[in-house]
């Protein structure tokens, strides 16, 4: 039967052996991480963004590389998913973008700070995280062709980054607001412009936020949505 000294030897031997292996793997990790995480692109802006990320405890609600809390969306690929303009608009007033839904703290970041944060998130998004986050295997396949419809391909940048968060065109985009394929049947250039300036003034209580759109943005959006096919 096993003796106490044999048991002690098992404990000490096992611990030493795995400890050495762990140390070797740590060295290996230090050798690999710079390339795998594109450390060459880790600019001062990224570093400052990382500082904001920790100072505000963003992972107290969000996850990044799957780490953090489970109250707010996973942000690893957020720059790729939403685009920089959307993130910038959203951070300035999070509740305006998702009225009546789960709330995020409204931070008084400067434009430069937001740029740093986005630089950090973009750097994280480019890390080779061994395939994480995986594409959803059972996601409905995107419909390639909508007969007679519009497509996002020729949409202006502002439309792709902001409007599609809630609306669909040509079967692509969010489903919070109605699809916008046939909007020309209900709006003309003037009424659409007035709506975009201040949705609440036209229809009080609407979920549509008042977005910080310049006149050029509004023009581009209405031109895209109202052009006849």
């Amino acid at each position: 039967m096993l003796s106490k000294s044999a048991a002690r030897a098992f404990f000490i031997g096992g611990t030493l052996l795995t400890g050495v292996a762990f140390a070797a793997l740590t060295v290996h990790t230090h050798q690999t991480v710079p390339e795998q995480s594109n450390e060459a692109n880790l600019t001062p802006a990224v570093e400052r963004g990382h500082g904001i990320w920790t100072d505000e405890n963003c992972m107290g609600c969000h996850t990044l590389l799957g780490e953090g809390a489970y109250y707010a969306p996973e942000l690893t690929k957020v720059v790729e998913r939403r685009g920089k303009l959307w993130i910038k608009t959203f951070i300035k007033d999070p509740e305006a973008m998702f009225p009546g839904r789960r709330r995020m703290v409204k931070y008084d970041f400067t434009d430069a700070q937001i740029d740093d944060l986005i630089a950090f998130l973009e750097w994280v998004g480019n890390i080779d995280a061994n395939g994480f986050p995986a594409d959803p295997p059972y996601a409905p396949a995107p419909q390639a062709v909508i007969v007679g419809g519009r497509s996002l391909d020729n949409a202006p940048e502002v439309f792709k980054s902001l409007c599609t968060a809630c609306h669909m065109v040509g079967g692509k985009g969010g489903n919070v607001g109605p699809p916008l394929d046939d909007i020309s049947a209900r709006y003309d250039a003037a009424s659409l412009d007035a709506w975009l300036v201040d949705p609440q003034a036209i229809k009080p209580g609407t979920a549509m936020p008042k977005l910080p759109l310049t006149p050029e943005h509004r023009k581009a959006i209405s031109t895209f949505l109202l052009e006849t096919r």
Partner: protein
Amino acid sequence: MKYKTQQIAWLFFATSMLLFALQLVYGFIMAFAHMGYDTLHPWIPFNAARAVHTNLLVMWLLSGFMGAAYYIIPEEVEREIVAPKLAVVQWAAFVIVGVIAIIGFHFGWWEGRKFLEIPRPLDWLVVVDVLTFVGIIGVTIWKGNRPTTTAIALYLGLVLAAVLYLPGMIHFKSQVLDSFYRWWVVHLWVEGVWELVMGGILSFLLIKLTGVDREILEKWLYVIVGFTFLSGILGTGHHYYYIGAPRIWLIVGGVFSALEPLAFLGMAMYGIAMARKGGRQHPNKNALLWTLGCCIMSFTGAGFLGFAHTLPQVNMYTHGTLVTAMHGHMAFWGAYGMLVFALIAYAMPELTGRARHKGKMAEWAFWMTTIGMVAMTGAFAVAGVAQVYMERMTGLDFLDVQDALQVHFFGLVLAATLFTTGFALYVVDFVKYGLPRSGGAPRTTTNGSADDVVVAVGARAAEG
């Protein structure tokens, strides 16, 4: 109670109870926020509640472990604690640093690094405080007559826990390396050296409660902690799958994590086998109930549920979802929460001289917290699995999925209410024991409550 300085433990136990009560409050705040009732958002946003909730967990468990050391070490090494006044100062400093940290979290004084949110200046105070603690206990063992394996396991666990706090204080520019070393603290604590503490406390309790020969218990203690380190050290790899660390961790982490449940299974079998084997009928049935409960719940929560999402191909989809919360709650409660509660249940009659061993209330406290925690884990499991399928597998929008999960958080709140009621009973029982008294070793009884009454009357007479 054989040694007067064991009374110091009571301060830590009482602190544990208070901090845990506060932890539950913040848990409810978060559960309600998940249900859509985030009224407190302007004052306590979710990230503040979360930092408080998890740090209180770490603090009350550490407080319980330190109390355990002050209680167990004198009896094991057969001498009083050296520098008892310094020990009280160490307790007070621990409480003060903890309170400052908790208040600071409400004002954004923190570092956004999960579980290690305590800001750097306070980190140093923690280090000084823990070094003081390690010093007091170390000198006590050194000067003692009998450095038992149980005492050494407990002490080694606490020393290594202190040492492993340091990698978490190194600053890295890279998020990947920052994360890499953060897990040296968090993982190597809970799936490494804390299990050494657990092994030490369990073997102390089993020696006292079952009367099994110390040599046999300590031999198996070596085997179990051997398995813990064999699997747990390289098992750290399961945190390195998807954070930008090399691919080799997928294999190493996967294989060694799969071995981790064995250590917990060993712990469970150890407890149950020794309890059966033991001839001694210790009157403190309540402590035995918590001890065995700890063995079983730690295997279920930490071993089994941990394994449920630790394989890389599963973890790809469960990583960063509520599935982690499912595993985390039962693991921490089963392995470490119940361990501290078991030791307190054992120590209180000894410390206060009141042999209240057979209270119905204590039994209710055990079953209500246990069933409450199983139900809470169930609620998290349903929410987590649903989230994985909806969000990660079919690609539905995060917020839409969260709306669909609200009902499960209602279930969570119901289960947590049961749990909290059980905990409240435990606290009432704790308060009823009163303050520790010198020379008040309880008259241990083996046959019914008649003697308990005698002890109680005697105690009252002594007080009068």
